[in-house]
């Protein structure tokens, strides 16, 4: 009580800082938020907008990445489609990507854990693995470059990045109803357009009153950065649909790889804690062994019984692979994982969510704030990038029409453009997740037949690659 009273007094005494007014306030300094900032400044039509970007975390690793590139790969790696890369090229940020840390790949091999069904998609550079921080860094560098090119003083350039700053509260200005964002620094920013690039728990979406629908998958994604037994000859992505969720091993340069493994809540927690040697063996097992083996290992590990487990795994892997020739092994299984980057293991909850709308008066949502998806298709970040591209287009058009860019008439085309496409993708990914969570034998037989059938139809496969890679 007395604390509250003291606080109240303190507030009463403190001088209210002046409210800063901007045209666009972006909440969130992730890839979506930074891309939006960079693209708006890159466009001749929108470059004079006064933009503020607020990020809750420390952006120092992003700022330093370009000049002081860390030796090891980070664990947040995404698969970029050619369409996304094309957009980043247009934004002018792609040239700041550390090219020696990205890895394009030409095929993806999808298998499943309950049958021997397999489908392989081949397309030159169908996707590129890039670390999140590499993308963010390239955008940050591009923003710095644009600032230099503008020959303006940095306070006049009109894109101010502030990190370590949280959104405390969002209110509306009394006179013109513009959103006013109260920051953890005590400052307030009033904005013509407030963009939520602030992730799944988007404060901006909550302020806007836009409903988001969806569910938790009861799965976590376990990520890790790994080393393979030797450098890959043919760069491919590997994905196996296990009944607990898909496991994906995606290539990074040389003998590096990155893992995304969807797992049950219990298993995911166990996977982040177990001895790394066992973890590595378990990954190798997951691409080769049958469900019954994996279930046994999960059971043992959840009980904390690890004795003889590695020998058991190696016995089963040898047993399962002995009938294959070297060539067949190469065709059907990824290279063995031999070690793991220290501290690179982490997990995050998997959710499906889709906002009813991406826009309302003076509000736009992009990326995860508008939609989250299961990572099995690697589309989450790409969807966000396409959102940004579309939103920038809508703002450009609105500016050319002399409209207030907070006007729903400016923002609605963005929503109309992106919602159906995102909805379709979210739906397909969701159905895939559900289809592959089923253990029932007739369903397994049916889906395996379907997968094999699709695998033999190259035209359909090309179409699907086109859809996913955005060509």
């Amino acid at each position, binding site marked *: 009580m007395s604390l509250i009273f003291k606080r109240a007094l303190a507030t009463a005494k403190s001088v209210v800082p002046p409210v800063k007014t901007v045209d666009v306030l972006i909440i969130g300094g992730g890839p979506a938020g930074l891309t939006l900032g960079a693209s708006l400044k890159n466009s001749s039509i929108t470059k004079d907008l006064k933009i503020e970007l607020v990020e809750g975390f420390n952006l120092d690793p992003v700022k330093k990445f370009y000049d002081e590139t860390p030796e090891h790969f980070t664990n947040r790696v995404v698969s970029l489609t050619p369409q996304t890369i094309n957009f980043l090229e247009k934004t002018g940020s792609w040239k700041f990507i550390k090219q020696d840390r990205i890895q394009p790949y030409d095929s993806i091999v999808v298998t499943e854990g309950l049958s021997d069904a397999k489908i392989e998609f081949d397309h030159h550079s169908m996707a590129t693995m890039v670390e999140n921080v590499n993308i963010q860094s390239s955008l940050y560098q591009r923003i710095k470059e644009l600032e230099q090119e503008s020959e303006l003083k940095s306070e006049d350039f009109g894109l101010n990045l502030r990190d370590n700053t949280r959104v405390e509260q969002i209110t509306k200005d009394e006179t013109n109803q513009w959103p006013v964002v109260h920051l953890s620094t005590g400052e307030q920013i009033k904005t013509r357009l407030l963009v939520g690039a602030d992730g799944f728990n988007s404060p901006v979406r909550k302020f806007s009153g836009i409903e988001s629908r969806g569910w938790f998958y009861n799965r976590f994604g376990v990520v890790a950065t790994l080393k393979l037994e030797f450098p890959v000859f043919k760069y491919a992505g590997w994905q196996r649909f296990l009944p607990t969720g898909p496991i994906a091993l995606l290539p990074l340069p040389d003998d590096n790889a990155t893992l995304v493994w969807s797992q049950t809540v219990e298993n995911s927690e166990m996977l982040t804690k177990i001895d790394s040697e066992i973890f590595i063996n378990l990954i190798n097992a997951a691409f080769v062994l049958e469900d019954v083996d994996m279930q046994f290992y999960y059971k043992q590990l959840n009980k904390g019984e690890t004795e003889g487990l590695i020998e058991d795994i190696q016995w089963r892997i040898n047993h399962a692979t002995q009938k294959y020739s070297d060539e067949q092994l190469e065709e059907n299984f990824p290279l063995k994982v031999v070690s793991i980057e220290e501290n690179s293991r982490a997990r995050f909850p998997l959710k499906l969510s889709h906002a009813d709308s991406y826009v309302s008066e003076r509000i736009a949502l992009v990326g995860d704030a508008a939609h989250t998806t299961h990572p099995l298709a690697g589309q989450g970040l790409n969807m966000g990038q396409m959102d940004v591209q579309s939103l920038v287009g809508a703002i450009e058009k609105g500016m050319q029409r002399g409209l*207030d860019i907070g*006007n729903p008439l400016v923002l609605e085309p963005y929503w109309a453009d992106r919602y159906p496409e995102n909805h379709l993708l979210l739906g397909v990914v969701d159905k895939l997740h559900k289809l592959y969570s089923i253990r029932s034998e007739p369903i397994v037989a049916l889906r395996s037949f379907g997968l094999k059938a699709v695998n033999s139809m190259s035209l359909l496969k090309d179409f699907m690659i086109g859809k996913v890679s955005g060509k």
Partner: protein
Amino acid sequence: MLPIKRQLRSLPLKNYVIRALSTSRPSLHFPIDKKTSTSQDEMDHFNQLASTWWDVDGPQRILHKMNLLRMDFIQETLRNSIDLNQDVESPDEEIYIPGYNIDLLPKPIAEQIIAEQELKREELVKSQPKLKALDIGCGGGILSESLARLKQIESVKGVDLSTDVLEAAKLHQRLDPSLHDKLQYRLSAVEDISKDEQFDIITMFEMLEHVNYPNEVLKSALGHIKPGGWLFISTINRDFISWFTTIFMGEHVLKIVPVGTHHLDKYINETELQDWFKEQKDFKVANSKGCIYLPFNGWSFTDSPNVGNFFMAIQRTK
């Protein structure tokens, strides 16, 4: 296809505005002194009016949507009037403008050509003096505000004969700090604007069909255009389609505007305007486009300016 009658939307004002630009009925104008004293009740009324007028999901949605098309028409006309190679001294500096549809080229090449053109166009626009605009029949200021936000516009003057809508326009203007210095509203008929005031752009959208003597109004407007300056107008062709959409559907069936808003005999054919402007010395019609309202889809341009609603851009050549 539904007609846009900006002034008529605020129903109590209908009668004043119908003849907004006709000097023959001065008695219908609000007394000038009306706006000098504003009571709280009136302020509430204006606020109410401003918020309905500016609610893009409200009764004026079709008008807000049409404003998008007006701005597109103005921007397109201005853009196309720029000679990208006007200041070029040697052919090397020339910006390449293919003599055919640019989409026929491979996408990357087409994109590069367009980007080059845009850059040059931007440079030229930047180097030119900024433009002064006059919006006749500005109503609540939907078009005036849009014009005022454009970079190449120096100032916009919006005139109307209804104090109510002008008050609403001013209230709304205050909400956007970027408009403070660029936009002013005046209670005035076009005939009453001082002859000294000259503009680069004059707009007169959805107005001629409500005027008894369009030719007088047009003449007054032309008198305020600077050499090289523009007049943008829109009105409705006098044909069956227009009757069906604006009067039969708009007034009687869908009841979007009150019955009696439109009179088919006041509609003006695009060809008649073309002919009229041919007689005006130093003026030429630079652009003319039809437009159509599709439910669920909004307004879009058509290739037939002589059917239904149409836009026209007239440039003063000397």
